[in-house]
């Protein structure tokens, strides 16, 4: 390790490292953040949900959107996997089906950033696993 020579040096490495731990605090107050839950049961994983989750986390980070991405169990819409649930602060949760990378990108750009609804919403007549 070369020694830090100034406050700027310090801030630079802080910014580099920030994302490594920021996730840990976001979990404390998720109600103020965009929450994304990725269904992650065996069936979902088979349909590529882990890749989708990785993509979402990295893209949100890149696009500077404060969000918490968590996994959850099977949402029960196995026909539409991979499924994700997105909650924007102050709004009802919305579930999207058939989310691949392209769809995920669209969700981030249009729904999360601008609040526009996009295709693929599954009607809300279910309970999330946490409310059981």
């Amino acid at each position, binding site marked *: *390790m070369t*020694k*830090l*020579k*100034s*406050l700027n*040096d*310090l*801030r630079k*490495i*802080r910014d580099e*490292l*920030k*994302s*490594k*731990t*920021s*996730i*840990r*605090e*976001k*979990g*404390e107050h*998720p109600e103020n953040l965009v929450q994304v839950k*990725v*269904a*992650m*049961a*065996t069936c979902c*994983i088979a349909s590529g949900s*882990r890749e989708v*989750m*990785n993509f979402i*986390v*990295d893209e949100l*980070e890149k696009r500077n959107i404060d969000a*918490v*991405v*968590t*996994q*959850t*169990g*099977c949402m029960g819409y196995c026909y539409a996997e991979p499924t994700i649930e997105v909650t924007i602060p102050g709004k009802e949760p919305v579930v999207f089906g058939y989310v691949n990378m392209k769809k995920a990108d669209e969700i981030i750009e249009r729904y999360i950033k601008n609040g526009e609804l996009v295709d693929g919403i599954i009607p809300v007549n279910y309970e999330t*696993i*946490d409310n059981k």
Partner: protein
Amino acid sequence: MSDYKLHLLVCGGTGCKASQSELIYENLKKEIGNEGLSDFAQVVRTGCFGFCEKGPIVKIIPDNTFYTQVKPEDAKEIVAEHIVKGRKVERLLYTDPVAKKTAGSTREIGFYKKQVRIALRNCGIIDPENIGEYISRDGYEALGKVLTELSPADTIKIIKDSGLRGRGGAGFPTGLKWELAAKSPGNEKYVVCNADEGDPGAFMDRSILEGDPHTVIEAMAICGYCIGADKGLVYIRAEYPLAIERLKTAIKQAREYGLLGNNILGSKFSFDIELRYGAGAFVCGEETALIHSMEGGRGEPTLKPPFPAVSGYLGKPTNVNNVETFANIPVILTKGAEWFSSIGTEKSKGTKVFALAGKINNVGLIEVPMGITLREVIFEIGGGIKNGKKFKAVQTGGPSGGCLTEKHLNIPIEYETLVAAGSMMGSGGMIVMDEDDCMVDFAKFFLEFSVEESCGKCTPCRIGNKRLHELLDRICKGNGAPEDIDRLINLSYVIKDTALCGLGQASPNPVLSTLEHFRHEYDAHIIDKKCPAGVCKALMTYEIVPENCVGCTACARACPVGAITGERKQIHKIDPKLCIKCGACLERCKFNAVIVN
């Protein structure tokens, strides 16, 4: 490499380590590796989560799942279910003792709801052995800012404005203390961190050092800059091997990063830290005693003045603060005095860490805003009294503090209010007692501690406490006389009035406060020769209730001294003269025929 999407935080505090958290850590890592998720999920060994009652604890981020009392063999299930499939392992979730409901995330746990974490902000969140994690959470930002943008006087002003007061006991304003040391003439000065937490039943400082050692290092460096010292010393209990290890690692890393050493962050300021080990003497928490101990001698206190700020370590100006006080410094400087002083009450700003213990459901380490009531702490955070028993008293301030009762439950926790109520803030021990605790015995327990820990230098503490203990002992043994109460009171006041240091001056507090609030228990011991709580052995009598006795002879066979007589199928009798009150008969009897009075 991209960042980890999932973090599994495993508590690596002493309490959880004692219940094999290290093995849990290893197993989780192994399981994640087996599932091929090593790039996706990260296992982190953190400092204490505070919720020691339910340890070992594993927390899954970002969904904030809080697994309690985890066993090493649970690692497989956690990974297979939660990490792979996203399904929480229900049986390991915390169940609220009052609502009888499992909590899916920490936000639903009463223990955490009312807590505000400043000093403990990083504990249980970062890996204490990784300086990068500390920096990523704005670590050393305060030091950098101070060195680059602020003068020592400006910095001291911020600390003064924040209203921060010493967290080690007496509550002296920290900024003022720094100012005194800064103004003291001399080129050679020292910053000392008091990590000799000797209060039995308190482990605030240890948890901070184990969970977030860099915050202390950063704060000490800031203090050094403010008072003009280039050397810091941490006086730490040798009984804290883990804290020592983590602190050593942290110091080493800070040096590598140039955050300790010469010309820190390109400034003219140089600072380094050394460790000095305590060796088991409570009195060394007193700053003059601590200094003598650091100098290699017996930890005997000396009269103040001169204060350490004028003549301390090696006779040089020295600023001594405790760990928790230091832990507040960096945040105050990054978030501002105004932010800090908005928390708490008018005279007591910020938060206080308490080690909650005793007959309470949620034993652990908590940080609460000043001004919170004892009731909230005990019944909401602490989850109430264990086994549904009745609350009797809470002892704050350890052996130097006093007992507070039901009627004090609504007073806000502040330095002044606690003193006014006959106790004190102390370093943060908080012991809860229930109906089964005898207050005379409890006072005796603390006096025994004070007798054992007295350095022996001054008469009132060396001999006076011994005499107090002897009086309490005789009361507990049923030999007390009515005039003993007056003697206890007079002796206590004289000890408070004449002892040399804080330890002696405060040592009679448990006697005085129990006498004030539980005089009837003393009277019961002295006059009725009874211990209402059934603790004082000498005052107990064992009897056999004839109606319940079936003459099974189990009790007679269990009695080690042959005090029980009676033929088979006949009613048995206990000879009180022979009985040694061991309780063996009570344990053995299946018919509730043995009773204790």
